[in-house]
């Protein structure tokens, strides 16, 4: 890949990208869909577009996925019973 191609990759934007605030507003729902093995892009393409472009939000998403998957595997404490 040439330097110009790399520049193109840096500058290209996706019109579907919903930004950090709207991603944060629904990232919990997005993550649960992914953990169920379904494709969250079907319902929330704007979040998929954002995560492809925003490193900090993508890293937060990976953190949330790690928690949910660890919980599903039983490697973190389960939710307490109804308070």
């Amino acid at each position, binding site marked *: 890949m040439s330097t110009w191609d790399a520049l193109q990759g*840096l500058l290209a934007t996706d019109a579907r990208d919903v930004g950090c605030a709207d991603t944060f507003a629904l990232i919990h729902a997005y993550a649960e869909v992914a953990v169920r093995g379904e494709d969250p892009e079907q319902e929330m393409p704007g979040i998929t577009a954002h995560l492809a472009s925003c490193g900090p939000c993508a890293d937060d998403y990976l*953190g949330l996925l*790690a*928690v949910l998957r660890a919980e599903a595997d039983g490697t973190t404490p389960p939710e307490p019973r*109804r308070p």
Partner: protein
Amino acid sequence: MCDTHSEPPAVPPGDPVSAGWVEALTGDGAQREDSIARLHVLLVKIARSEALRRSGLNGIVGQELDDVACQAADDALLSILRRVTDFRGESKFMTWAYKFVIFEVSNKLSRHAWRRDSPQWDEASWELLPARLGAGPEEMAESRELVEVVRAAVDGELTVHQRRVFVAIVLEGMPLDSLVAELGTNRNAIYKTMFDARRKLHAHLITRGYVTSRLERDA
């Protein structure tokens, strides 16, 4: 600021655990206090595991990392209690709650990891652009032209604020969340500024034939 929410929080049907959390946290008395204490314990556990997951990336370890995790859990708890009536039941309650603590860990680690004085914006920074884009020494001539073209576009097309954000993130390699902390703003605002800057520069470089549009690439 007044709380203008009039709708009660919603929980997914058939999810008594989430319903229990919402009911307890929006209630009062000893049950609420007990739920807050249980929630805090969970948030501390999640904050520690998330801080550990990120520890290799930022050089913060040991007691300092644990302090960051505990502060993140404390702040996440406050955010959750302030916003519990915003919960709309799109997920389990705890999944919704976890995102706050993940975000706080991310935010606090960024602030700790990037300590510096005022941004350095000089000739040397621009010379770093090809390396930031992965160029090798054999691409020296092409890189020189690229630096001239991009620098002219940044100077001519971007606002002062957009230039500052673009230079900090692209040339200086400053993490977005660290810039957020330095400028006292929020992640969405900096991302939007950067998004607009990228779009402007891309359009400018397309009209001058340096890069191609998405339509041309897909054709």
